[in-house]
């Protein structure tokens, strides 16, 4: 199985595994993923705390920059197999910690959903603080 690449920028790295934080004084360069504009962000870190953010064009970019340096999160979109043998599209209804993505997949892979399924149905609950909801419908 593929591993998350937490060590993408080996020379200047700031990330957190579980409760442990790695404290560095550094500038991190990020690409904002909140919207398709993909702004280039600069984040100043002092003693592990975000002290300045630049490059963002909206408030959400600022939030993203802060989160990405303290607790990076991702919305996971995937499929769940249904009882008819075909998959249905699903997503986490809120972002999950980035390092949990593959654990989310493990739980999702085991699940077989019964039909019908409608957009918004919760197919799995409490997955790292998120629900897995259907994003498409079938068998209605």
């Amino acid at each position, binding site marked *: 199985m*593929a591993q998350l690449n937490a060590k993408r920028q080996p020379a200047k790295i700031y990330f957190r595994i579980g409760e442990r934080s790695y404290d560095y004084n550094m500038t991190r360069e990020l*690409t904002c993923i909140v919207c398709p504009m*993909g702004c280039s962000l600069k984040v100043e870190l002092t003693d592990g705390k975000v002290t300045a953010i630049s490059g963002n064009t909206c408030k959400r970019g600022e939030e993203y920059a802060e989160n990405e340096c303290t607790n990076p999160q991702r919305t996971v979109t995937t499929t769940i197999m249904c009882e008819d043998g075909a998959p249905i599209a699903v*997503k986490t209804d809120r972002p999950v910690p980035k390092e949990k993505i593959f654990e989310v997949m493990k739980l999702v892979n085991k699940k077989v959903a019964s039909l019908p399924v409608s957009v918004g149905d919760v197919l799995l609950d409490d997955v790292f603080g998120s629900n897995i909801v259907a994003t*498409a*419908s079938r068998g209605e």
Partner: protein
Amino acid sequence: MDLVIIGGGPAGMSAAIAAYESGIRDMVILERDESLGGILQQCIHNGFGLHKFGEELTGPEYAWRYEKKVRELNIPVKLGTMVLDITEDKVITATNPEDGIFTIEAKAIILAMGCRERSKGALNIAGSRPAGIYSAGTAQKYVNMKGYMPGKNVVILGSGDIGLIMARRMTLEGAKVHAVCELMPYSGGLARNIEQCLNDFGIPLKLSHTVVEIHGKERVTGVTIAKVDENRKPILETKEYIPCDTLLLSVGLIPENELSKSAGISLSTITSGADVDQDRQTSIPGIFACGNVLHVHDLVDFVSEEAEIAGKSAALYIQNGKENTCSIALETDGKIRYTVPQRITENKDVKVYFRVADVFKNVKINVYSGENVVFSKRKQKVAPGEMESILLKKEMLEGAEKLTFKLEEA
């Protein structure tokens, strides 16, 4: 019939709703698939709808919002229906299992057939032709709609958004994506997708690289990649063999305009879509085009926006006819590859979309009417992968015969 909309994807549905809301009732959407939604059905990732709905939706969710509306409004839809031909005088020939081959005479037509992926055939990659070579969208269909894995060890050629999305998708399903090779020195995909689809998973993006040979007799066993020089020719000393069972291609999208051609609609050689005015009317009065059949969009939000223009304009055309009050050609300087629309025929505010030919930093987008700059906007960075737009105000059009879009140093 008043209006026939060809295609029930985001463009077709959006156009149909806009036409309905402008008063058209005698209409039908012809959709070749067994359900509405078009390609969005298989685009299960998020990132849709931020402009349109202010929230982040997945492809099926975005499509569902429009499908629900189409159902609520009782807009007639014929599913499983393939249009075979359109004539210049707007006679449509289509087929489906229930009706057989039938024709419809329409007062207006909206073309919303979408686009297709550039295929491996067009690339002339040397080597064998085994199983295991797919366009990224085909792989997306297998994985997301059918539940099957087209491969487990993957190399992707081309860094278009679907390729990037599939790199992540296949990784999540347990495949190992060894590399994404991009011929150009920059990616054709959105920056956010490089971040969250490649960087998150440590998938290398190899810019200025291409696949020079495919290996394998029955199934792909590997590919040879190489760096390319500034003329995009492979540098043979940099050849590298990567064992893999799958090559995915994400090397561009082409508007599907076979029907437009059969109707005799004039097409732009740059967009491969119809040449249109601000209302998205093609060279044939009463035939409109919108969405990826017109030009390839990065964001479905803009597809919907464009389709609304086409839908409203088609309604106006049916109700009152459409009169031209001016004739302004929009031209570009080459650094800007194309604009949509390509011409303006009515004095009103017009949003113009365009794409640049290369990555440029610190530039000004200047619009000239003769010697005069009628519009100017500064941009930190523009890239071919990201569509730009500007709003031309009515007063900027006054007296113009031609507007030239130029990218100039800021």
